[in-house]
C-alpha cells in the first residue's frame, strides 16, 4: 500500500495541491491539507482498497480538510494575505469529487513567476509541483536545510505579499511566461544531467523530476512548440545516459561513446517532437537547442557529425537567445567544422566574458583546441585552469587524466 501511495505522491501531488490551493488561497495551508490527505490514504486504502481515481480521492479529502479549516475562522489570524486568483465558475466547486478543474497550470505559472529569483523558482517547482520535502529540495541543490527552508518561506511570502497571481497569464504574455517555466525545468534537468559538484556525474533523482515536469507541462500545453522542444531536448540528451561514464567510472566524451547503447526509443520520440516543433514556424530557443542535440543523436558516428549544420544552428540560437555559453559551444563546433585554429579564434572574444570566469568549460574547450594544435604547454595550463574551477569528481578525474597524458614522461 505504501508503494501505491508513493506512486500517487509522485504522479498526483501537483494536481491535488493545485486544486486545494484554490480553496485555501494559501500555499502552506494547502500543503498541510494535502499532506494530511496522503497520510489518510495510507490507512483508508489499506482498509478499502485503492480507489479508481487516486488523484480525485486525494483531492476530495484534501479539499474537505481545507473547507473545515476555512470554516474554523483561523483565517482571521493568518499572517499572509490570500492569494490573488481569477474567478472560477461557481457551482460544482464546493461539491468537489469527480469534476475538479485542473489547476496545475496556475500553480506552474505562480512557481515560475519571473519576479521570483531563479533559484527560488526552481526550489518552489520541486517543492510544490513535485512534492519534495524541504530537506529533499535542500539536498537537490546542495544547500543546508535551514537555508533552503528560509528560501522557500521567503518566496511564499513574496507571492502572497506582492500578490503574484494564481492564474494563467493572458495570451500576450504567454510566450515569455512559458519560457520562464521551461527555463526552470531545463535548469533542473541540467543540474541533474551533469551535477555541478559531488561524486556522481549524474543526479538521477533530479533528471527524473525534470522529466516529470516536462511531461506535465507538455500534457497541459500540448500545442506549444517550445514546450514540445524542451521535452525533446531532455529526451535526446538523456538517451546517452548509459554511455557517458565507462565501466570503470571514467567520463566518456561524445566522440568516445558507444552509440549502439543510446536509447533509441527516447531518440525517436525526441526527433519526432523537434521535427513537429520546427514545422510550426520560426524556431525559438528550446527548438534550436533541441535541433542541435538532434544532430548528434541522429548521427551514426562521431566522424559523420555534420559540424557545418551545427555551426549554422548555433548562429540561429545566438540570434534568438544571445548568451556567452552558446557562443562557447559554437566555438567548439567551429573547432570541428573548420579546424582547431578557427575554433580558438572564435573562443578569443569570450575570454573576458564575466559570466564565464568561473565556467570550467571555457578553459577545457580552450585546452582541447590547444592540444589538437600541438601547443602542449598552453594546453596543460588550460586544463589546470579548468581543474581549479571544476567540482564534479568524475569531470575532475577526466581533466587530471588529460593532464597526466600530456605531461612529458619521465
Amino acid at each position, binding site marked *: 500500500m505504501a508503494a501505491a501511495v508513493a506512486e500517487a505522491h509522485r504522479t498526483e501531488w501537483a494536481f491535488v495541491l493545485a486544486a486545494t490551493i484554490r480553496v485555501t488561497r494559501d500555499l502552506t495551508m494547502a500543503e498541510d491539507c494535502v499532506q494530511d490527505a496522503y497520510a489518510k490514504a495510507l490507512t483508508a486504502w489499506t482498509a478499502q482498497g485503492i480507489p479508481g481515481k487516486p488523484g480525485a480521492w486525494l483531492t476530495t479529502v484534501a479539499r474537505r480538510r481545507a473547507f473545515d479549516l476555512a470554516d474554523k475562522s483561523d483565517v482571521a489570524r493568518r499572517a499572509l*494575505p490570500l492569494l*490573488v486568483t481569477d474567478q472560477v465558475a461557481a457551482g460544482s466547486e464546493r461539491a468537489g469529487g469527480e469534476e475538479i478543474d485542473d489547476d496545475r497550470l496556475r500553480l506552474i505559472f505562480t512557481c515560475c513567476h519571473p*519576479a521570483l529569483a531563479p533559484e527560488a523558482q526552481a526550489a518552489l517547482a520541486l517543492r510544490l509541483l513535485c512534492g519534495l520535502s524541504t530537506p529533499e529540495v535542500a539536498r537537490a541543490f546542495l544547500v543546508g536545510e535551514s537555508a533552503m527552508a528560509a528560501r522557500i518561506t521567503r518566496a511564499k511570502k513574496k507571492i502572497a*505579499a*506582492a*500578490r*503574484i*497571481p494564481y492564474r494563467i*497569464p493572458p495570451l500576450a504574455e504567454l510566450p515569455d511566461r512559458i519560457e520562464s517555466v521551461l527555463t526552470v525545468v531545463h535548469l533542473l534537468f541540467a543540474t541533474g544531467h551533469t551535477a555541478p559538484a559531488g561524486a556522481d556525474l549524474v543526479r538521477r533523482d533530479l533528471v527524473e523530476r525534470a522529466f516529470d515536469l516536462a511531461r506535465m507541462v507538455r500534457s497541459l500545453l500540448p500545442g506549444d512548440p517550445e514546450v514540445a522542444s524542451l521535452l525533446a531536448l531532455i529526451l535526446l540528451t538523456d538517451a546517452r545516459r548509459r554511455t557517458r561514464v565507462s565501466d570503470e567510472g571514467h567520463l566518456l566524451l561524445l566522440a568516445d561513446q558507444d552509440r549502439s547503447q543510446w536509447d533509441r526509443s527516447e531518440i525517436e520520440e525526441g526527433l519526432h517532437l523537434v521535427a513537429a516543433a520546427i514545422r510550426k514556424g520560426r524556431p525559438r530557443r528550446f527548438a534550436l537547442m533541441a535541433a542541435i542535440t538532434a544532430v548528434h543523436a541522429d548521427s551514426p558516428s562521431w566522424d559523420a557529425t555534420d559540424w557545418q549544420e551545427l555551426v549554422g544552428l548555433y548562429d540561429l540560437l545566438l540570434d534568438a537567445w544571445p548568451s556567452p555559453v552558446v557562443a562557447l559551444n559554437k566555438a567548439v563546433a567551429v573547432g570541428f567544422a573548420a579546424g582547431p585554429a578557427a575554433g580558438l579564434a572564435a573562443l578569443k572574444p569570450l575570454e573576458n566574458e564575466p559570466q564565464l570566469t568561473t565556467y570550467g568549460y571555457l578553459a577545457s574547450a580552450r585546452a582541447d583546441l590547444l592540444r589538437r594544435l600541438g601547443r602542449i604547454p598552453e594546453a596543460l595550463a588550460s586544463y589546470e585552469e579548468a581543474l581549479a574551477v571544476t567540482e564534479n569528481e568524475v569531470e575532475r578525474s577526466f581533466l587530471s587524466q588529460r593532464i597526466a597524458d600530456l605531461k612529458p614522461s619521465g
Partner: protein
Amino acid sequence: MAQYLMLIYEDEARWAEAAPETAEQVMKQHEQFVATHKPILRGGHALQPTSTATSLRRERSGGLAVTDGAFVETKEAVGGYYVVEAADLDEAMAVAKDIPAPFGGVEIRPVRESS
C-alpha cells in the same frame, strides 16, 4: 485591489549631464504616462535631487543626528515615485513598464495593507 509604490531610481550624475531637450522629452513621457494611467494613479511626484535631502537618524544615545544628504548614498537614487492601484503584480508590472526612467529603472513595492 492593492496599491503599489513605484520608485524611480536613476543616476543623478547622468541627469545632471543630460541635454535640456532630453529632460523635456522625459517630462513629456511622464505627462503621457499620467494621462494613460490616470484612473489607477493614486499619487506621484518628481523629487528634488539628493543634494537637497536631509537625513535624521536616531542615535544609540537617544539623540537625533541630522546629516546633509540621502539616507544611503548610492549611484542610483530615488528621483520620483508613483502610487498605482492594481489587482496583482502582473498588472503592476505592466504599468511599471510604461514609466520613463532613461537613466535607471523602477522598483515595485507592494504597499502593506492596513488591517
